[in-house]
């Protein structure tokens, strides 16, 4: 399955990219599993997406949680807690 990844703010700076398209192995089916799969890249990825770190996730531009299922062509975003207003 191919999906689009987006990264913002401190997460974007840490991993050094704002977006990319990735082909996922069949075992990766939820937003949380995408996060865990990206951690396997190690280094800044493992740190920025570490379990226990406050991180928010969006699927197709809607806030979501780790259990949300992903679908072909969807846009998954990872970013720190929001600080607007």
């Amino acid at each position, binding site marked *: 399955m191919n999906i689009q990844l987006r990264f913002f703010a401190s997460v974007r700076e840490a991993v050094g990219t704002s977006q990319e398209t990735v082909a996922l192995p069949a075992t990766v089916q939820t937003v949380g599993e995408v996060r865990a799969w990206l951690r396997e890249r190690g280094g800044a990825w493992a740190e920025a997406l570490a379990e226990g770190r406050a991180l928010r996730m969006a699927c197709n531009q809607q806030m979501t949680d780790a259990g949300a299922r992903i679908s072909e062509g969807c846009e998954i975003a990872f970013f720190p*807690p929001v600080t607007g207003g």
Partner: protein
Amino acid sequence: MPIRVQTQDFDLGAEVAALRAGQPQVGAVVAFVGTVRDMNEGAGVSEMELEHYPGMTEKALEDIVAQARARWNIFDALVIHRVGPLRPLDQIVLVAVTSAHRGEAFDACEFIMDYLKTEAPFWKKEQTPHGARWVDARVTDDQALAKWGIRSSNTGTPE
């Protein structure tokens, strides 16, 4: 247009005038303006950069306004949020609400701001004498939203 994300400044008087123009049923206008402070978390702030998630930001703000409309009997709501480089004294955000009576407008305006603080994808990066830093989210903002019966995990750990 009730939602605007823009780099340029806004004029409170002009925006409120436009919001209630030709609307004689309006008896109350409540407006909140958020501005850039020169001090945050014990350090002087000389400049800040506001980043957002184009596309999602507009959807999130439209959803927030729709929720306010569902809860209160209001006529209209306007949200303007600036992005890009900002300095102390600059205006950041405007929320303006019109209704027949003040109660609905006060509540809806506060609700929209509380919701925006924890659910709209904006991030502030400050320039201080110690260097640049991303602003930390506040637990008090999650608590502010909780008083409307909505749980936010903005500062928490969802996993």
